[in-house]
């Protein structure tokens, strides 16, 4: 694999992800609006479809402020770290089976390491740095409190999320995302024996993305905007982009690990569109949950994670191990 080849694929992925970000953002505002008996954005372009363009122009033209006491280097690096890590994690997500165009063999991911799932988990852990450094470097009470909360939360829920992922790894006996999906094509979808693991993954992914009802890191009522209060303009946009790209990664991972990836239900063939449909459903779930549940109190969040999700994750691991030891699908 030459460097140029990887570079071209990376650029395509980044463009795709950022375009998707722009439109999922409008979609989220629309969906939230609909949940609240509003229309959402409708003014810019037909049906509000030029809204992201307007937002982008606005963001670029805003003054780039920096608090007087801020740590310059960290303050400037943090949003880049957040976005870079979010984009990097998606690089190993396969969007579909290997495509054959003539004699060309095209895997539908930028990189395809043998143990892709480990890479995703590792990069998502680094994602905490963007949030915590941003809050720390801002030299602001609210930002610091927000980043402290976010760090504690992401570290705790990563454990629950990790347990759910491990249950999938045990179930398929591989760390390779492609193999996992093709196994679900042959046998049942992962969520059928591993329903508890899927549930934990669902909750954990919402918490991992710092989204409502787990958005304590940016609790508007108490912390103004949490870790990114002091950011403006494009640096702020970086954090938002990172959040959305993380959502994409999580939804893709959920679909790949538990929902059969690019395989259609009831043997209805397999294509990229199935995966995208599942991701869309997953993203809709994110928005649905956001419009339904009120934010958790901090102690509730912690006790829910450590006292319910993590033990449940272990319990589920025992069940899945038993399932596999008893012969599993074979």
């Amino acid at each position, binding site marked *: 694999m030459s460097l140029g080849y990887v570079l071209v694929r990376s650029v395509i992925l980044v463009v795709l992800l950022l375009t998707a970000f722009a439109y999922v953002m409008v979609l989220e505002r629309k969906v939230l609006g609909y*949940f609240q008996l509003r229309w959402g954005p409708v003014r810019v372009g037909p049906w509000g479809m030029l809204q992201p363009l307007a937002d982008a122009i606005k963001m670029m033209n805003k003054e780039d402020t920096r608090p007087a006491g801020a740590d310059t280097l960290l303050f400037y690096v943090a949003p880049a770290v957040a976005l870079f890590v979010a984009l990097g994690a998606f690089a190993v997500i396969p969007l579909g089976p290997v495509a054959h165009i003539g004699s060309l063999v095209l895997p539908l991911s930028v990189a395809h390491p043998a143990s892709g799932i480990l890479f995703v988990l590792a990069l998502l852990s680094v994602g905490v740095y963007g949030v915590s450094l941003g809050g720390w470097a801002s030299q602001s009470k609210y930002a610091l409190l927000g980043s402290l909360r976010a760090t504690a939360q992401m570290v705790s829920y990563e454990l629950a999320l990790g347990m759910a992922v491990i249950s999938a790894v045990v179930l398929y006996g591989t760390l390779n995302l492609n193999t996992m999906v093709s196994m679900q094509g042959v046998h049942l979808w992962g969520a059928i024996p591993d329903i508890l693991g899927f549930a934990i993954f669902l909750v954990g992914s919402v918490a991992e993305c710092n989204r409502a009802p787990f958005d304590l890191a940016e609790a508007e009522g108490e912390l103004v905007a949490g870790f990114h209060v002091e950011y403006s303009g494009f640096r702020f946009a970086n954090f938002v982009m990172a959040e959305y790209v993380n959502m994409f990664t999580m939804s893709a991972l959920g679909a790949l690990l538990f929902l059969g990836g690019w395989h259609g239900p009831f043997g209805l063939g397999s294509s990229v569109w199935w995966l995208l449909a599942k991701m869309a459903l997953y993203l809709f779930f994110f928005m649905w949950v956001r419009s339904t549940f009120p934010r958790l109190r901090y102690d509730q969040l912690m006790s829910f994670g450590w006292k319910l999700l993590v033990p449940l994750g272990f319990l589920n691991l025992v069940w899945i191990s038993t399932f596999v030891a008893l012969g599993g699908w074979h």
Partner: protein
Amino acid sequence: MSRMPKSSRLRQLRGLPEGLGTTLHYLWRRRVTVDYPERQRPVAERFRGLHILDRYDDGLERCVGCELCQAACPAHCITVEAAENPPDHPFSPGERYGYRYEIDLLRCIFCGFCEEACPTGAIQLTPRHDLVGFSRQDFQVDREWLLVPDPRTETLAEEGAR
């Protein structure tokens, strides 16, 4: 943290899908948003909005400069000064007319007391509520601004443009 029996705690979990169901139901409800500038909800019949100074059918101003509105105004936003009607072309049917009539719309609380105090029905509140301006000065309105068009001098088309 309060302790409750395990069973009721588990029962509480039922609230989660119930809540999700409730919000999902709202997706198909009718929207309550009105596309404001294009469509406007009707205001109440007796809504008190922007003032006008009315005329009689023959075009003469109703205001006789009695200053009762100024006295009635709890916000002290009306200033009236009266002057003698010029005999050759009178502004109003009485002896005097409202020579100066100013309202500070930013101070006005739209209580309608001026309307009630007016003996000739000159000052009236209309249902118009979309008052906008670029400066505070824009809201200091005078007699010319408040007066309805004179049917003797203005054609219907000009009235429509106002």
